[in-house]
């Protein structure tokens, strides 16, 4: 039954969200909207995995700017996150790597408020630093025996990759070289870093400072590339609606610089 699934997911998320209380008094249990500044509050944010590093930093800054607030992130593939929200997971803010999944929450789920696009991202070919298969461009991905890894259908990065192949007219050959459909884009990067894959399609922003030694970016021509639009919104039913709105505004405001640092493009 739905209720059981809701209970189960809620339990897991609550456990994850329960960090040690900061000094001093705890306000009432979760749900007792502690909105006023200075009171303890917890915010749960589900965000696409490509936002991991950037949002991590943004989260810390937001906490510093709002003492007593704890931001807990739930990173994963946008389709999976939307699914959880639609099943009733108590998430306050949802940041998706594609409008599709925000639409899903809006139309099939609890609904959203304060929806806005907050960033854009480009995709690129990502290869191991030593580029064993000698990939230079999209066409090289169609060579026989290339071990290509992309995200699964439904995951924004996966849908975008397929769209790019279609744009470039190499769908059949490229898809034939796909050896694995990963559950989120971070897993794609991992396979490339480990050297097991010859190449992967991921976001430009996925080449973070941590991994820049181990992978190389090969740009995709603009005419076939996809520009991913990232929407963010407050999820209806949030117990911290005010705080959630505050977070959304932060991302749209001060957070923009951080996003730019990590390679994201400004929203359209």
């Amino acid at each position: 039954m739905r209720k059981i699934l809701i209970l189960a997911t809620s339990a897991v998320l609550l456990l994850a969200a329960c960090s040690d209380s900061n000094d001093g008094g705890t306000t009432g249990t979760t749900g007792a909207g502690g909105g006023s500044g200075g009171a303890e509050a917890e915010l749960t944010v589900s965000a696409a995995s490509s936002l991991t590093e950037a949002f991590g930093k943004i989260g810390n800054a937001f906490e510093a700017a709002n003492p007593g607030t704890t931001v807990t992130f739930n990173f994963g593939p946008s389709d999976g996150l939307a699914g959880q929200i639609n099943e009733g997971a108590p998430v306050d803010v949802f940041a998706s790597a594609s409008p599709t999944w925000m639409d899903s929450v809006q139309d099939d789920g609890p609904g959203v408020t304060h929806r806005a696009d907050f960033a854009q991202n480009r995709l690129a070919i990502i290869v191991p630093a030593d580029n064993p298969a000698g990939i230079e461009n999209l066409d090289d991905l169609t060579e026989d025996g290339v071990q290509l890894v992309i995200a699964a259908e439904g995951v924004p990065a996966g849908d975008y990759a397929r769209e790019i192949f279609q744009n470039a007219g190499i769908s059949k050959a490229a898809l034939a070289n796909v050896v694995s459909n990963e559950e989120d884009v971070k897993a794609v990067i991992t396979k490339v870093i480990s050297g097991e894959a010859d190449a992967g399609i991921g976001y430009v922003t996925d080449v973070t400072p941590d991994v820049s030694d181990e992978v190389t970016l090969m740009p995709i021509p603009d005419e076939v590339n996809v520009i991913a639009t990232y929407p963010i919104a407050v999820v209806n039913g949030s117990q911290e609606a005010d705080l959630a709105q505050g977070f959304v505004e932060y991302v749209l405001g001060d957070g923009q610089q951080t996003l730019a640092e990590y390679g994201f493009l400004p929203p359209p």
Partner: protein
Amino acid sequence: MSLATDSRRSPSTASSPLRRGRIPAGFVVLAALGVALVALPLLGLVLRTPWPRIGEILTSETALTALRLSLIVATTSAAISFVLGFPLAWVLVRGTFPGKTLVRAVVILPLVMPPVVAGVGLLAAFGRRSGLLGSWLYEWFGIQLTFTTAAAVLAATFVSFPLAVLALEAGLRGLDERLEDAAATLGASRWYVLRRVTVPLMGPQIAAALVLSWARALGEFGATITFAGNLQGRTQTLPLAVFEQLQTDTDAAFAVSMLLILLAFAVILALRGRFLR
């Protein structure tokens, strides 16, 4: 007192010095909780499964492909576990050599390893870039193990092998070796003794080993997705299919999960009467 009567099974209503039928109330409560712990998720699954759509979902290409692949992978894995596990169990039970305890610990290790860790370990051994053996295979023979069905089999075998060994060990330990001695004096070669005495007497334990390792192999996820990847028809076993469906079509996820459960149930029931007690 004749030995034959000793070995005669005592009547099922064996009188016991303990009072029969008196189970402590506390035990009943705890036992019920235990059953509930296992039964509730199953019940939830049954209730949540979209029964009207189930035919359509389970005959979809995704489901059928995953089913076929799962059966192949699990069965191959169980076979490998048995072929390698039986001699290993033999050596562990009847052999004496320095470091036996260590060997045993190593063999049992995959059982307590988180599956993803197991996947990472498999990469470290068989990955074409960083793998101990894998890089050599790739450099010299151009053989890449990752992203293949063989990798799925390897991952499934790695995590289920200890189960087979443990069950077979228990079986061997429970054997009366003197029966094998007797068989020898009656003219049976070592191979004949193995075939006609040892293995038949170990029937239940061999069945348990096969079933346990097959079931574990069927359900393997973490190591598979880390080491073998996820590609329909090649490495996407049923658990991986469920996971992928969970992101997009939860109904389908439940349906395929139900399929897995039913598969497992079928095997357990088929063997319950004869072997698993």
